[in-house]
């Protein structure tokens, strides 16, 4: 039957399950994100650190005999502490930066347009809860970052395990779990802060600047405080320091002395919890004017 001849009719077929609704939101937003060629190029570039790391793993194990001309430099590289100086800085730290950049670019564009265009009544008048809506938006960022951080990171760890001596993976089981855990904690923290800013500012450029400013100004104040007081309290304002401490602990690398571990967790949890509370207050079908 032609589309034009169809009348209005109720749906008699099956309905999808409620748990699928966040996935719908995530899928449509992901395809919207990749509609931009510029972003696609940027996203492909985000695989570069993982690619370089893969090359370095290959060189480390396979080309040792062929690069005698590098002399001591190569010798030192291959003898370096495998966790601290190589996998940690080769995989986890670049992943943190890549995750930050992706959240900076995508995060502010996820909520602000919906609020600006008054789309919330449309979402929430359906069998979709606030939490499902937010989960859908979070999934966008978690998916984007996972594909360029811990998923290739796991492949790199597996590649390293393959080339290394037998039993390396079993001896270093904290590495894959730490990698996934650190990336998820960091991405979730960044994502919730970015979404909250996006929801409150309701204007993408301002939310992007606000997100960037939060880190730049936080780091500046924190470093200033640390320099003047001489103790670690300033690091509480620097989320990079906090994830460094937490990441090293999860990864099994040498502990950082930037701040005590519980304080690092608290430093990450506090802004995330505050942002989540702010998000829940902002995501509503209608504003009530008092």
């Amino acid at each position, binding site marked *: 039957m032609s*589309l*034009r001849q*169809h*009348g*209005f*009719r*109720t*749906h008699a*077929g*099956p*309905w*999808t399950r*409620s748990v699928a*609704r966040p996935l*719908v*939101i995530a899928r*449509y937003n992901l395809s*919207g994100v990749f*509609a931009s060629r510029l972003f696609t190029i940027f996203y492909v570039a985000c695989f570069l650190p993982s690619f370089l790391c893969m090359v370095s793993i290959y060189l480390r194990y396979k080309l040792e005999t062929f690069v005698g001309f590098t002399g001591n430099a190569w010798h030192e590289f291959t003898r370096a502490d495998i966790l601290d100086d190589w996998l940690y800085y080769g995989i986890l730290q670049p992943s943190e930066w890549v995750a930050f950049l992706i959240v900076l670019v995508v995060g502010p564009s996820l909520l602000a*347009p*919906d609020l*600006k*265009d*008054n*789309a919330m*009544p*449309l*979402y*929430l*008048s*359906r*069998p*979709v*809860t606030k939490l499902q809506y937010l989960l859908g938006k979070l999934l966008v960022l978690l998916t984007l970052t996972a594909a360029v951080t811990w998923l290739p990171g796991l492949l790199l760890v597996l590649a390293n395990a393959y080339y290394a001596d037998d039993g390396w993976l079993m001896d270093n089981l904290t590495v894959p779990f730490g990698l996934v855990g650190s990336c998820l904690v960091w991405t979730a923290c960044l994502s919730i802060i970015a979404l909250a800013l996006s929801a409150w500012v309701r204007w993408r450029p301002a939310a992007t600047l606000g997100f960037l400013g939060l880190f730049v100004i936080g780091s500046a104040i924190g470093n200033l405080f640390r320099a003047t007081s001489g103790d670690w309290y300033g690091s509480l304002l620097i989320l990079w320091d906090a994830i460094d401490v937490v990441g090293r602990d999860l990864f099994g690398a040498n502990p950082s002395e930037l701040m005590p571990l519980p304080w690092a967790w608290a430093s990450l949890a506090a802004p995330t919890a505050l942002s989540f509370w702010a998000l829940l207050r902002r995501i*509503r*079908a*209608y504003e*009530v*004017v*008092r």
Partner: protein
Amino acid sequence: MTDAAGSSLSVPAPKPDGSGTVAATRGHWAEFRGLSVDLGGRRVLNDLNATLGGRCVGLLGPNGAGKTTLLNTLLGFFKPSAGHARVFGRDVVRDSAGVRQLIGYMPERDSFVGGMTGVRFVRMMGELSGLPRDDALDRAHEAFFRVGLGEARYRKVETYSQGMKQLAKLAQAIAHGPRLLFLDEPTNGLDPPARSRMLQLVRGIRDTGDTRLVVSSHLLRDVEECCDEVLILKNGRIASVCDLESERRSNRKFLFLQIKGAQERFVEGLVALGCEVGMPNRRRLRAVLPADVEIADLYALAAELSVQIRQLDHKRDSLEDIFLRAMDDAAVGETGSTP
């Protein structure tokens, strides 16, 4: 029920508790019992008691009467501070998701998801309502053709004109084939042809399938053209619930006549036919026809008695009359004075 002269015939007067139960005899789909909603420290809906059963219910009231709040409460956006509401037997608080599964909602203000083509926007909304992906795509296309935007369905929603946005909002509301459709000020910002088209669409949906509609509007004519039942709100209370269909039926039997000739014999003839007849003045007759008497019978009587019927009017108790009366009654109820 009062007599002639334009008083209320079948409009139930508001009860002291602000209730109305016109649809009680029909299978009702919505029920409010003592429903109150407080927003921003202010009582916006106050002790609503009603059952609704019309195919298309008009929600009328002046600005700030609580129309949109009532819709939002039924959608689960606002929690009642007292009482409860049920839609198709489901409690709007306890089974909010279940209720929303049955509802299509067209908000009053501009609402869309930017950066998407029209059909993609409606498809996404269909999927969020629970339609499988392929069904959602089919229905998004159908909905766009149904509302008359078929040719514009691949344009970005933000590039639509005001009228097109209204139609796109309607398309997203009907795409998943809801059992109940909430239309909040559907003709807002539309020019006369677009308004006419929108009302035609609303009537089309009303007359097809099982879908029930609630049309919230402050435009009486819009409601009159589409609805068979009205719920009139004032200051958060129910001022009246009125079955427009029975109102229209009763109006058809209520006549004003102006005749020339043997008036007394004509009146006797009307009484003999079973009509109730009154004479407000020498020139005019007022007649209420029994169910089995048609207007043609009056012309036959006039011909038989050689009387000229110079003028014959149906009493027109328009929605405006009903609305104004409800407003007056509500005002009287609030002040506690007598008319």
